[in-house]
């Protein structure tokens, strides 16, 4: 039984942000797979909920004429995983979406909710970080677009201003065209689990033997999802070799701020970052048409 004190439904973005402006206590609910759990555990008490499920404009995936892929925040993980646009253009995001929860959860959980929840473990986040995704945010005052890396402020904390709603996730063509990617969700279970570490790697090769660009997004390696600038800078222009990849793995650890908890030790987490970054990169190289790196 949930202690729901009020329940509002918006049918347009404008209606939603106006309601939010009028009542700052409203908690936005979409799929509910995070909000209801927080209520169950008492992290949200006596909630007044604003459902955005009826806002049709927030659903769906599109490829614009300029090649930008836009994902509506209400798009469920199942829809992301099955979307022809995503599968064709950014298959790594479909892989990440498919690693989340189980089928029932994926059928209701939304990608926008996954981002706005602010968890470092969000299964979509490390890939969206690697893709340099941008987020479109709407408030009664207007619209702004921010890089996803600036949106995450801390554990469970995102840069949503009062009365602001996430209305779109944008991925520009220069961030996915020519790239191949691979996502590894390292978790204790193969389904229904939270990542111990999420590693999303994108790479673009030159002549199949040089790294033109490498991007590494990590989840659960720091209080928010992160990128690995030092490792990425090192990779640019290097030949695709076991040694290069080993070094990239080592350098990736430098970006992390892992800590010891009862879930895993810092030492183990760092070891996993080094190991799994290499594995993800090797898999991405293969997909990018490079050879197998033993």
């Amino acid at each position, binding site marked *: *039984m949930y*202690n729901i004190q009020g329940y509002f439904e918006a049918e347009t973005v404008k209606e939603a942000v106006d309601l939010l402006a009028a009542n700052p206590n409203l908690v936005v609910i979409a799929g509910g797979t995070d909000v209801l759990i927080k209520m169950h555990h008492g992290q949200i008490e006596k909630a007044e909920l604003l459902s955005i499920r009826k806002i049709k404009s927030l659903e769906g995936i599109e490829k614009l004429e300029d090649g930008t892929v836009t994902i509506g925040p209400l798009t469920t993980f199942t829809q992301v995983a099955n979307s022809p646009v995503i599968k064709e253009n950014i298959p790594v995001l479909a892989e990440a979406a498919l690693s989340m929860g*189980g089928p029932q959860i994926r059928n209701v959980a939304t990608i926008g909710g996954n981002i706005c929840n602010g968890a470092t473990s969000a299964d979509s986040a490390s890939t969206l970080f690697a893709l340099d995704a941008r987020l479109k945010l709407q408030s009664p005052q207007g619209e702004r677009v921010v890089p996803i890396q600036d949106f995450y402020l801390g554990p469970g904390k995102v840069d949503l201003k009062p009365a602001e709603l996430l209305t779109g996730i944008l991925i520009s063509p220069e961030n996915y065209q020519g790239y191949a990617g691979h996502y590894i969700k*390292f978790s*204790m*279970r*193969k*389904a*229904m*689990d*939270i990542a*111990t570490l999420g590693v999303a790697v994108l790479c673009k090769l030159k002549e199949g033997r040089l790294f033109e660009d490498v991007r590494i997004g990590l989840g659960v390696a720091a209080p928010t999802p992160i990128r690995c600038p030092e490792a990425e800078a090192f990779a640019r222009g290097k030949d695709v070799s076991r040694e290069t990849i080993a070094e990239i793995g080592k350098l990736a650890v430098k970006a992390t701020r892992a800590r010891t908890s*009862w*879930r*895993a*030790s810092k030492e*183990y987490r760092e*070891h*996993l970052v080094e*190991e*799994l970054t290499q594995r993800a990169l090797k898999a991405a190289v293969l997909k990018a048409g490079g050879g197998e790196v033993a």
Partner: protein
Amino acid sequence: MGYSIVGESVKRVDAVAKVTGKAKYTGDFLERDMLVGKILRSPHAHAMVKNIDVSKAKALPGVEAVLTYRDVPANKFATAGHPYALDPAHRDKEDRTILTNKARFVGDAVAAVVATDELVAQEALKLIEVEYEVLEPLLTPEAAMREGAPLIHEDCPRNIVSSAGYEIGNIEEAFKESDYIFEEEFETSIVQHCQLENHISIAYVDSDGRIVIITSTQIPHIVRRIVGQALGIPWGRVRVIKPAVGGGFGSKQDVCLEPLAAAMTLAVGGRPVKLELSREECMIDTRTRHAIKYKIKTGVAKDGKLVGMHITAISNTGAYASHGHSILMAGGSKFRILYPMKALKYDAYTVYTNLPVAGAMRGYGSPQITYAVECHLENIARKLNMDPIELRRKNLVQVGYVDPLNGNVVRSCGIRECIDKGKELIKWDEKKARYQNQTGTKRRGVGMACFSYASGTYPAGQEIAGARIVLNQDGSVQLQLGATEIGQGSDTVFAQMTAEILGIPVDMVHVISTQDTDVSPFDTGAYASRQTYITGMAVKKAALEVKEKILDFVFKMTGIPAQALDIKDCNIVYKHSGEAVMPLAEVALRTYYDLCSAHPITSDTSNNARVNAFTFGVTFAEVEVDVCTGKIEVVEIYNVHDSGKIINPQLAEGQVHGGVSMGIGYALMEQMLFDEKTGKPLNNNLLDYKLPTIMDIPEIGVAFVETFEPTGPFGNKSLGEPPVIPVAPAIRNAVLDATGVAFNRIPMNPQRVFEKFKEAGLI
């Protein structure tokens, strides 16, 4: 044996009701004006309640009652689901009260609220003001046993519940005779049953002033007695109803909620009260599996014959005894039959700590000791450069062996055939050879482990069972039992047994699945893998009695002597030729309406079984170890069981599937974690507690070696718990085979494997 229905995979009698949602579970009973009960739990692992102020909670609209230890009877009672012992010395430890003024673990029930709905009850809990005097939390047996540690229960010095053990032969002499001595330590973790249906009870007072409790339990008759004891009222004033149950695995072989539910209804003038735990509550305040530490010293002769073994076991039973020392004693007696040796010394300590209460869980102490002993034997075999299977073979029990302490006899034993079958299924020799000298990131290995177990508890416990059969006018029957269907399929196998004897199809046996202590025959319930064996005896006896009465009736009608007759396919037939005499339905109709000789046929039978049967089996497992991440994956696994005659192969296979996946979780993933300083639970939910999903479990291979157990009603022996027992050591031995690293502690989760591999230089 020429059975026609026993031994067939007939459809579960409750299949349609369960898959269509028509089966009624406790939560489906919607009593009129039902109130909701909630429990206030201690935030401290060890603390005295100095003061409780409930005035604000009581004043909250919608609150009907607030209870503290002052408002409920102070009778001390034991919660373990055992038969009552007339001899006070053999009773379980009576260390509980319905509510406590001394919190002994985080989550201990210090107060309770009854309110109009869950939200009001929840709100009221927050308004109860409790002042605690916090005591030192004792979170390990070592801390609890140390000199001068505070006492968790006043009457147990050094917090030891019991230290009773045994010695067979003379251990010191055995060690002197041995060529080699091996000493090792092993450790298991605290895990939880995680059955699908959480604990739930509904209680009310009926129009005769009796307390009625509808409850999700494995042991309705025992619940009646314990509620009577807890409340200090005559046991007959309590009526317990057990509807469909969504699993228990031992957590419901214990009385967790019912006394409090009864106290709650009494506090609100008998109105119905529902007391239902959330998963988070269920994981800390029902029961867990005991974590046990073993020290084993073993003497072995040159040829691999075990000469003597000295086991010291220290069991963490948590805040209240529950099944307590019985777990150590049961484990310590059921394993020893497998490898008889000259001397065996068992020192056993069950220790209170300020952690959740450990109780019965599938295997009842055997998964722990089997893990320790089967890992130990594997290590010994390696040190002796012997094939681990050969080492075991050299020491296996023979038919005719009599347990020197309890007198139980091995009358059937297929362990050798189980081993042969398992070796063949997994292609042992081929893989053993193939997996030598691996160096890559992913390494494979094979391992195995054996077990022995019992069928019921005799002679440690009484083994009584009841069955009642009523013949209807159409030749069908009602079968009533005190034994409980909790998902394992017992109703179906009892229907098969009845149908077999009475010569009718299974769908003419109407099993009354609900137990009601007012009307159901007496039976202690579902535990110790006892029902098919023990209750089966009562069912067989009742069915034979009904058959005898039917044939006698036919004799009176026809003059054909009963011994010349049989019942086949719903007809009375001549035994020698099979020629039909008359339809069973005609006889049945006459038993009701014949003007002269009408006498409806029933049997109301009880059977006090003073016998036990040993059951055996093996797990063979193949693993793939990711050396660089510490992840272990079971790629193939086979369980082969000697459970005597299999009554229903499909249901039996289902039992094995469940047990094996539970064993895989035990080996690789599951453990309850607590803050090392405060004892606060860290992962009492199904996200953080890593119960495996179906994706984590490989195809499970199942095979049976069907011996015939002469004491079993149909040649059968136990199967409910056994499948879980040998799984963890087999997986561990496979990991050892793959990597050369010996894990003497479970679970082998990636963090722990990483640490161990680093230590071993593999990473």
